[in-house]
C-alpha cells in the first residue's frame, strides 16, 4: 500500500494544501485531534526523523514555527503544541515524517499531560551515564557550520571580528570537551 502522505503529494486533491515548495508541504488533514491542526511534511518520503537530511529538517522546522505563529492570530489560539511522533511505537500512524502543529485553547478537551513515571535512583544514574557518554559524541551539522563560516568570511569585514571571536570560543570549548573525554577514557583503561 502506498504512503498516505506521498499520495497527497502526488494527487493534490486528497487534502487541503496551505503551502508548497520544492522540499515541503503544509497540509490540513481530515483525521486530526482538533480542527485547525496543521501538518508539515517533507516532499520526499522519509519514514522517521533520523532519515530526514539536516537541510530538509531545517526547512520543515522553520515552516512549523511559522505555522505556529500564524495560528495564534488567525485561529485565535491561546497556545500551540508541536508534536513529532517518531516510530510506530510512538503512535506514528503514517510512515512518513511529519510535524504536527496543534492550536490550543483553554478547555478544548485535549490533554497532553503524561503520567509521571518515578524512577529509582540507580535507574536514573544508569540512564544518565549511558546517555551522557553518547551525548558527548554528538557533532551537530558539521558540514553546514563550515560552509556557513566560509560564507561569513566572504561577507562584510565588520562582521569578521565577531565571527573570529565566536569561532575562538567554540574551539576552546571543543578542546575542553575533548580533554574531558580523553581523561575519562584514560581512567577507564584498566
Amino acid at each position: 500500500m502506498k504512503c498516505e502522505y506521498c499520495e497527497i503529494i502526488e494527487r493534490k486533491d486528497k487534502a487541503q494544501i496551505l503551502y508548497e515548495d520544492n522540499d515541503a508541504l503544509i497540509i490540513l488533514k481530515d483525521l486530526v485531534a482538533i480542527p485547525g491542526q496543521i501538518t508539515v511534511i517533507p516532499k520526499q518520503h522519509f519514514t522517521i526523523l533520523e532519515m530526514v537530511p539536516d537541510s530538509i529538517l531545517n526547512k520543515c522546522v522553520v515552516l512549523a514555527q511559522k505555522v505556529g505563529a500564524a495560528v495564534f492570530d488567525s485561529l485565535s489560539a491561546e497556545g500551540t503544541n508541536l508534536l513529532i511522533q517518531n516510530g510506530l511505537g510512538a503512535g506514528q500512524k503514517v510512515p512518513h515524517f511529519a510535524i504536527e502543529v496543534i492550536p490550543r485553547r483553554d478547555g478544548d478537551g485535549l490533554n497532553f499531560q503524561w503520567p509521571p513515571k518515578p524512577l529509582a535512583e540507580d535507574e536514573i544514574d544508569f540512564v544518565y551515564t549511558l546517555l551522557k557518554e553518547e551525548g558527548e559524541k554528538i557533532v551537530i551539522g558539521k558540514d553546514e557550520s563550515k560552509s556557513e563560516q566560509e560564507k561569513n568570511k566572504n561577507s562584510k569585514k565588520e562582521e569578521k571580528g565577531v565571527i573570529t571571536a565566536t569561532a575562538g570560543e567554540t574551539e576552546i570549548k571543543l578542546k575542553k570537551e575533548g580533554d574531558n573525554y580523553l581523561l575519562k577514557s584514560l581512567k577507564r583503561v584498566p
Partner: protein
Amino acid sequence: MAKLPADLSKLTEEQRLELEEKLKKMPPEELKQLQEQQCIFCQIISGKVPSKQIYEDKSCLVILDINPAAKGHLLLLPKPHYAIMPQIPEKEIKHLFLVSKALSQVLLKSLNVDGTTIFAANGLAAGQRAQHFILHLIPRKSGDGVLDLPERIIPQDIIEKVKGAVESKLNELLGVRNENMAVAVQEEPLPKPKEEKFTTSSAAKRYHKEKCAFAQNIPEDKKVILTKEEVMASGKEPCTCVTGKRIPLKNKSKAKLNTTEEPAKKIELKKPIETKSKIKKEAGASLDDIAGLFK
C-alpha cells in the same frame, strides 16, 4: 532593576493587580531580565541549580527530566530565555531540532525503545508549565499511554474554514506573494508611461528614457523631449530601455552590467523577508503578552 516579592502566592489580590500593572508598564528588556531571574531553567543553564546534563553546546543544553514520562525523557533547552517557540530565532530553532534528531537516534540505539516523541507546548492553554521554552524528547514503547492523540474526522467545510482563516496569515509570514497581489502590482505601472517623457535627438531613429546612457550622450542642443503621444507620432523606434529589456548604463562594460543587475534581483527577494521580520516583531509583541501569563 525591579525585583519581585519573594513569595508570589502570599500576595493579596490588590497587591497582585498592582504587580500586574507594573509588569505591563515595564520596558521589554527589563521584563526579559526579570523573567530570566525568575526562571528555574535559566538557573539550571547558568549552573545555579544542579541538573543531570546529557549534552551541551553554545546555544543549547540537554538535561534529564526530573519528572519523566519514561526512562530517558530529555529536555532540550535553548540557552537564551525564550518563553515560546515563535520568539526563537530561526537559526536557534533549526539547531535545536538538529540536536533533537541526533539525540533521538541515541535514545533509539541505547535504550531499546520503539520510537521517540518530540513535543513542545507553547502557552498555558497548551499545557506549558515552565516559562522557558522546552523541547521534550520522550523515548516511547508501544502502549505506554504517553501522548496518545484521540483522532477524529473533521468535515470538509470546517477544514475549508480553517484554510481560509490561516492561509493569508501564513503566506504573510512565509513571504509568499498572493496571486491577487501580483496582478495588482502588474496593473499599477501600466498608466505610468503615459505621463512619462522620452528623450531623443532630432536626428536619431530611436527614443530613450531620460536615464538611459544613450539619452545622456545626446548633446544638449540636439536634445528633444517628447511625451508618449508625440513619440508615437514621430515614428521613432523605442530603445531597449523603453521596452524594458535592459537599461544601457553609461561607461559600463557588460560584466559590470551583470553585477548591477544582481543586486536589483536580490532586493526583490529581500522584500518579503523584510516584511516577514516586521510581522514577526508584531507577532512577538502580542505573544509576549501570552508569555506574560506565566507571571
